[in-house]
């Protein structure tokens, strides 16, 4: 695969291989967990610590989503954690996923903390569905509230609707079709079908199923939209040296980065000269490759954030796996399925496994590096992971020690 993709070296940071993911944990994924978000959080966090072979008292830092409803101090008190020296929250929805690991890695690389836990716990399906849209919000004279005022009075109220507006323009400019979007769902569901932890375990779909699924917001069909899920996922980040002494082979954080473009909007990037790209993800990709000293050719598998299928295509382009506008051709050749050039979302993604704001994808990347994934990709050296798209975002490259 050769794409004219130039890595810009001045984007390199000093983070390469300074920290590692030493432990991962998760609850089951469901539509109604039947327990509190706080309980989901402590279950996932203690599972991740157990996986790493660490004690709750070893934890001295947290890095979590600002959207998570469970304060880190509360989680820490519940699990009997230690005194905390670092606690940060990252904003902008699912864009925070890999950024929690970035900030944890920065904390351990600089000695600010030794053991930092990142988690996301939510009863998103049974308690607070994002897909229901931003109805019933009381208008406040704040910037974030005013932002919705440009869309809500017209009925542009849901994440799907915001993505659909960009997707339509992308289809117009590059000739991508609804079927091209559907191929992402088909790949994800194929991978979920062999993952017992996936909600859609043993339920693959065909492209015809996708095309028959109803409109949510034309051009997006039901099967272009990720699930809504209850569940929790946690990871434990510590220094590379310490990780080598722990229970699991470390998943080295070869690179981690955040990105927001100079014209960044929150899901409604409708105003830039071109709206068919995700420049913030391009910025993340540049930093990741530069920091890791890698190119797209060095990546064997990727977890591509898939809340809505069109942005998977655009991310493949931003990461240089194919040229701008050519993702439809890249995925048409089966490249993103197991056995293809770049199998993506081998756990089933958020369309197939569960929607835990991207954190379940980080767990899968760790399993691919360890060689314990249920759908293992052969000879994995490096895995790309991306976070929420259409928003200020983040990404990781994880690799073997």
């Amino acid at each position, binding site marked *: 695969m050769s794409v004219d993709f130039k890595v810009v070296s001045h984007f390199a940071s000093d983070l390469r291989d300074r920290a590692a993911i030493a432990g991962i944990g998760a609850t089951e994924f469901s539509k109604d967990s039947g327990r509190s978000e706080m309980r989901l959080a402590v279950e996932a966090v203690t599972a991740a610590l157990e996986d790493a072979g660490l004690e709750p008292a070893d934890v001295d830092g947290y890095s979590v989503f600002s959207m998570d409803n469970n304060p880190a101090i509360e989680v820490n008190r519940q699990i009997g954690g230690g005194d905390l020296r670092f606690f940060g929250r990252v904003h902008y929805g699912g864009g925070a996923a890999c950024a929690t690991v970035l900030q944890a890695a920065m904390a351990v690389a600089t000695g600010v903390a030794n053991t930092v836990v990142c988690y996301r716990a939510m009863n998103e399906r049974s308690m607070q569905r994002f897909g229901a849209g931003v109805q019933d919000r009381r208008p406040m*004279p704040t910037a974030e509230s005013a932002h919705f005022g440009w869309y809500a009075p017209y*009925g542009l109220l849901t994440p799907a609707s915001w993505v659909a507006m960009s997707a*339509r323009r992308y289809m117009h400019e590059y000739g991508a079709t609804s079927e091209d979007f559907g191929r992402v769902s088909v790949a994800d569901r194929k991978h979920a079908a062999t993952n017992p932890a996936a909600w859609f375990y043993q339920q693959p779909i065909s492209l015809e199923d996708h095309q028959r699924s109803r409109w949510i917001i034309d051009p997006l069909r039901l099967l272009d939209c990720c699930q809504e899920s209850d569940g929790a996922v946690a990871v434990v980040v510590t220094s590379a040296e310490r990780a080598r002494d722990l229970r699991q082979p470390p998943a080295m954080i070869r690179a981690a980065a955040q990105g927001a473009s100079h014209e960044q909007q929150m899901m409604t990037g*409708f105003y830039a000269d071109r709206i068919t790209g995700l420049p913030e993800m391009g910025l993340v990709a540049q930093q990741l490759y530069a920091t890791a000293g890698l190119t797209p050719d060095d990546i064997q598998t990727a977890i591509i954030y898939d809340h809505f299928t069109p942005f998977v295509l655009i991310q493949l382009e931003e990461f240089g796996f194919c040229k701008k506008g050519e993702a439809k051709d890249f995925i048409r050749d089966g490249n993103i399925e197991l056995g293809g050039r770049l199998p993506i979302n081998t756990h089933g993604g958020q369309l197939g496994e569960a929607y835990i704001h991207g954190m379940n994808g980080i767990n899968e990347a760790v399993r691919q590096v360890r060689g314990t994934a249920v759908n293992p990709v052969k000879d994995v050296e490096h895995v790309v992971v991306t976070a929420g798209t259409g928003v200020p975002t983040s990404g990781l490259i994880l690799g073997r020690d």
Partner: protein
Amino acid sequence: MKKSETPLLDQMRQLTGAPVGEPNTARDPVNQAMIRHWCDAVDDRNPVYTDPEFAEKSVHGGIVAPPTMLQAWTMPGLMSREEREARAPRGPSVLRLLDEAGFTSVVATNCTQAYKRYLRPGDLLTVSHSIEAVSDEKKTALGVGHFVTQLTCYRDQNGEEVATMRFRLLKFRPTERSAGAERRGAPKRSRPVPSINHDNRFFWDGVQAGRLLIQRCFCGKLRHPPGPMCPVCRSLEWEAAEACGRGTVYSYVVAHHPPIPPFEYPNLIVLVELEEGVRIVSNLVDIEPEEVEIGMAVRARFDEVEPDRILLQFERAKG
């Protein structure tokens, strides 16, 4: 005239007692099949409704219909909205007057049925309606409103009155606190309102006055959505420039799900590139979704989407 009376009350009280619409005769006589269906639905095992042998020996001397099934006999059945509207009574009506006066929400509060005799298979009912009473303006937990009592008379094939029904409802102007309760009784909700602050007030004031205003820095840079500072020259000074309203469709979506009141679906939402160069999100109206194309010429208009609420909308440019 009592002091509390208002022109609205006066008008409404002139209409009380008068029939509402024409009397309406049931499509079918009282019959065993519908009785059985009803008894199955509410699991009523009373044998006088369905067991001819038992019924014959009973006080009734034969099958009778459940009295509480009264209304079912004259229900119109399945109709399209158009048919229903075509059959709605014309002319002034108390409910319409209340709607027009802003008492748009409705909740049923009481239903009283009195039966003169049990109905038997073969009875053919004719129903007539009138407004029996309208209350003074009342303050209720749901909001300020009027209680309206409708009187319905059921007559048989001989013109004998067999039953009456009084149906009492509250027509009210919802308060913010009652919004939740209103959701159950009355469907109409308003479109989400924008958050208005120092940076965007000019835009929404402009829309209310029928003008499409775009923020323009004195350096010439147009900005939408607006903000306090010009990203080109850092000026905090700006003016509101009126856009000509012409533009083209840059992108669009057709919303189907989830249905969020009060929007009607499918809902066509467009990203318009204005002739001046900025883009803005709005609805495209008076057009079928299949007819929309990227690049299509559109123009702004200002619709009163709700009472006293003007919203920017776009339509296909003519010519």
